[in-house]
């Protein structure tokens, strides 16, 4: 992209150069013309002075060349710059005087004699209407009685303005010419001829004209051209300083504003269009900033609303889940209570009957089937015990009481829980829990049950062995978190959301009540239990419980 500065510099440069050249050419032509005109006027004056000189007329009339000296000397006195290249004075028959300048090389034979004019002038009548002045120049020459002027170039290269004038015998009083015009002369026979005494021819050299022109070129035209260029540079500097620089500054500020910095303002340095543009730009920036601030406020409020809505939605969802879980728990609890209560007694009776049967029936009684009988009896006892345990669990689940809280040390709780669980040898355990951790306000029995469930689940998740890490740490000022991390098989993503649901289990022999019960207990303690698991890498359960307010 071509910048305005470059365009401006290019344009002004072309303009300045063009104007400079045109001005110089025009001035040069004008000067030359003026110099030529001045030379023509000077030559006209000189030749007319000579032609009208009485002594010249007398010399021509009496054919005495000696009488020409005084007139020629007077002419030389006037020609101070010695511009007269040659001079020729002749009467109607012969050349009486021919002179040329010593300084200029000119061959007088090359100067034409104007013989055709000589013939013409011989019979020239007095002209009454030649008062309009002297006509000079080759193109304007019309009257034979007027001055004749032309440009001559000799073989040596010298250029002359050649002036030619007729010397008349007498002149007519101009007012009498006018009188003749006014009063009419048509009735008068005027046979009188105006005698032509001779001719004066004079050449003014162009060398002085060229010198003067050269002088003007060096003294006027070149300084003028230089002045125009300097003026152009100043103009360019002015334009770039006062026009482009503010625009560039404005462009930079625009970029800043576009990048979000709406505090940028333009310094108003002038009261012209650029100043007005700066004022308008600042006004626009202020409006933009006000709009932006307003939008930010609205966006902030919107974000707060969205955040609120999100939290509300989350809470609603959690509440819904809790409600659902609670309903489920209630239903399961009710069912477990009913089923447990109904099965407990028959199972008790079966257990008692098995005890009695085992006591009263001896091996002899079964006649060779003693080993099989014992094996069956062990199975029945084992399964009955298991059924009783299930029923007890169901009853325990249904009978979870409101927690009776008291401050407890979390490290003691962890150690107590670990001591009550049989941890396989292949599983290593690490516990990070400082004694200085603040006590938590919990029902020790229920929380121990939660911890036991989580430790058991972790061990079961690592059948091939692994590492169980238990870490207790303060979570903010009001909670304490305990994490149980195993390096087991992990929980698939598709079942994570159901892991705390009652009767849901991934284990083959599980009832699906342990985590549901743990979740229920933690909730009753106004805590949280969360799950993070990555399939194949392990699972982390985090239990957050409120810290006991020891000061209160």
């Amino acid at each position: 992209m071509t910048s305005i500065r470059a365009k401006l510099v290019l344009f002004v440069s072309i303009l300045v150069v063009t104007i400079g050249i045109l001005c110089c050419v025009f001035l040069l032509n004008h000067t030359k013309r003026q110099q030529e005109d001045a030379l023509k006027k000077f030559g006209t004056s000189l030749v007319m002075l000579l032609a009208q000189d009485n002594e010249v007329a007398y010399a021509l009339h009496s054919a005495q060349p000696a009488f020409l000296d005084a007139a020629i000397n007077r002419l030389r006195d006037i020609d101070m710059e010695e511009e007269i290249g040659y001079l020729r004075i002749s009467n109607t028959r012969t050349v009486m005087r021919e002179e040329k300048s010593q300084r200029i090389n000119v061959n007088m034979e090359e100067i034409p004699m104007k013989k055709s004019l000589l013939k013409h002038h011989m019979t020239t009548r007095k002209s009454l209407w030649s008062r309009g002045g002297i006509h000079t120049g080759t193109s304007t020459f019309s009257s034979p009685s007027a001055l004749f002027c032309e440009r001559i170039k000799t073989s040596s290269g010298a250029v002359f303005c050649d002036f030619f004038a007729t010397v008349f015998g007498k002149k007519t009083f101009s007012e009498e010419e006018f009188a003749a015009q006014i009063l009419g002369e048509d009735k008068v026979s005027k046979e009188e001829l105006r005698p032509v005494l001779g001719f004066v021819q004079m050449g003014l050299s162009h060398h002085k004209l060229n010198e003067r022109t050269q002088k003007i070129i060096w003294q006027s035209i070149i300084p003028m051209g230089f002045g125009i260029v300097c003026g152009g540079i100043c103009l360019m500097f002015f334009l770039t300083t006062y026009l482009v620089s503010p625009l560039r500054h404005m462009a930079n500020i625009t970029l800043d504003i576009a990048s979000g910095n709406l505090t940028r303002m333009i310094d108003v340095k002038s009261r012209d269009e650029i100043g007005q543009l700066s004022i308008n730009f600042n006004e626009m920036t202020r409006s933009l900033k006000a709009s932006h601030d307003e939008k930010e406020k609205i966006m902030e409020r919107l974000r707060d609303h969205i955040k609120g809505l999100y939290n509300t939605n989350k809470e609603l969802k959690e509440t819904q889940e809790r409600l659902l879980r609670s309903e489920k728990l209630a239903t399961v609890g009710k069912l477990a209570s009913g089923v447990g209560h109904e099965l407990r007694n028959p199972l008790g009776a079966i257990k008692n009957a098995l005890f009695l049967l085992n006591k009263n029936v001896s091996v002899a009684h079964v006649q060779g089937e003693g080993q099989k009988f014992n094996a069956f009896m062990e199975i029945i006892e084992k399964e009955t015990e298991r059924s009783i345990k299930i029923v007890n669990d169901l009853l325990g689940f249904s009978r979870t009481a409101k927690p009776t809280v008291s401050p407890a040390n979390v490290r003691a709780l962890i150690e107590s829980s670990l001591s009550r669980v049989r941890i396989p040898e292949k599983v290593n355990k690490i516990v990070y829990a400082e004694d200085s951790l603040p006590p938590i306000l919990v029902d020790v029995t229920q929380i121990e049950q939660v911890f036991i469930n989580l430790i058991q689940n972790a061990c079961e998740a690592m059948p091939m062995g692994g590492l169980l890490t238990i870490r207790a740490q303060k979570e903010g000022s009001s909670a304490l978190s305990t994490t149980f991390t195993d390096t087991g098989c992990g929980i698939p993503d598709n079942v994570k959301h159901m892991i705390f649901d009652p009767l849901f289990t991934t284990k083959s022999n599980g009832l699906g009540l342990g985590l549901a019960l743990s979740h229920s207990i933690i909730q009753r303690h106004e805590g949280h239990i969360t799950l993070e698991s990555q399939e194949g890498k392990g699972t982390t359960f985090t239990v957050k419980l409120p810290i006991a307010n020891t000061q209160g």
Partner: protein
Amino acid sequence: MKQIFPQSERYHGVILLWWFAAVFLFQTTFFVPRLIAAEKTVVIFRSQQIAAYNEAILGFEEGCKEKNISIKTIYDLHGDTEEGKRIIQMVKKDGTKPDAILAVGVLAATLAKEHFSDIPVIFCMVINHDRFNLQGANITGISSEASIEDQFAVLKEILGPHKNIGVIYDPLKTRKIVAQANIVAKQFGFNLVKSEVVLEKEVASALKNITPKIDALWLIPDSTVITKNTLSSIPKIIQDRRVPVFSTSDVMVKAGALVSVSPDYKHTGIQAAQLVQRLLTDPPSTSLGIQQPKKLKLTLNTQTAKTIGINLLFIQSYPDVVLYPQ
């Protein structure tokens, strides 16, 4: 003593004869030269040979008859200043001094005024004489132009009053005439529209500018204004603008102007002769000044009148009216 009276009676006739002879001789000796001496001589200087000057000189010669004024010589100055000076020097060197000098034309008048201070000089046929300061105790003359009043009177008769009259003039030459005309124009109910020019070449544009504003163009004898070009442009003004042109010269009428009021040149000469007689009979102590021509002639261009649409029949019946083309 005896008286001899009878002898006296005898020679009475001879004595009477002698007495008559003595009286005759006395008369011849004392009175005839005085009578001869009483015939005044006038030298005429003519600026150049033009018809109008010759006509005036002819009138002067006619006017001198029976007035005991004789024209000694007529000198022609050929319109040349140097020659004029030479001739005047020659006349001055001549022993016989003329009683009066008649200068015909501006060259003759100016040279005569310059070289003769003790002889009455009467000039005539000097166009626009105000310009040449022809004043002095021995200088008197007759104007070669009709008075402005006479010119405007004719104009009013032709055009009627309340007209815009245009005049182009060179202030260096004819300012005085225009200033007088401005006063006279108001008396006649005319509005003089003036246009000043300094150079001859300005006349064409001045004419172009002034013609739309005027009802008639008045050409005064101004050598800057009246040129060959002006004369050639008169028919165009009449053709294009229908503006009548009037002047003080019948030459203009021939060039296309509508009317001119000019002096009768021959009568100017007669008037000059009367002036010379008056000056020589009873020489005044001061100059008689410049007199207006007593007889004027009106030159009308009937063709121009027809082109413009002006009826000049009523004026054609006036005396001394010359019609052109005849």
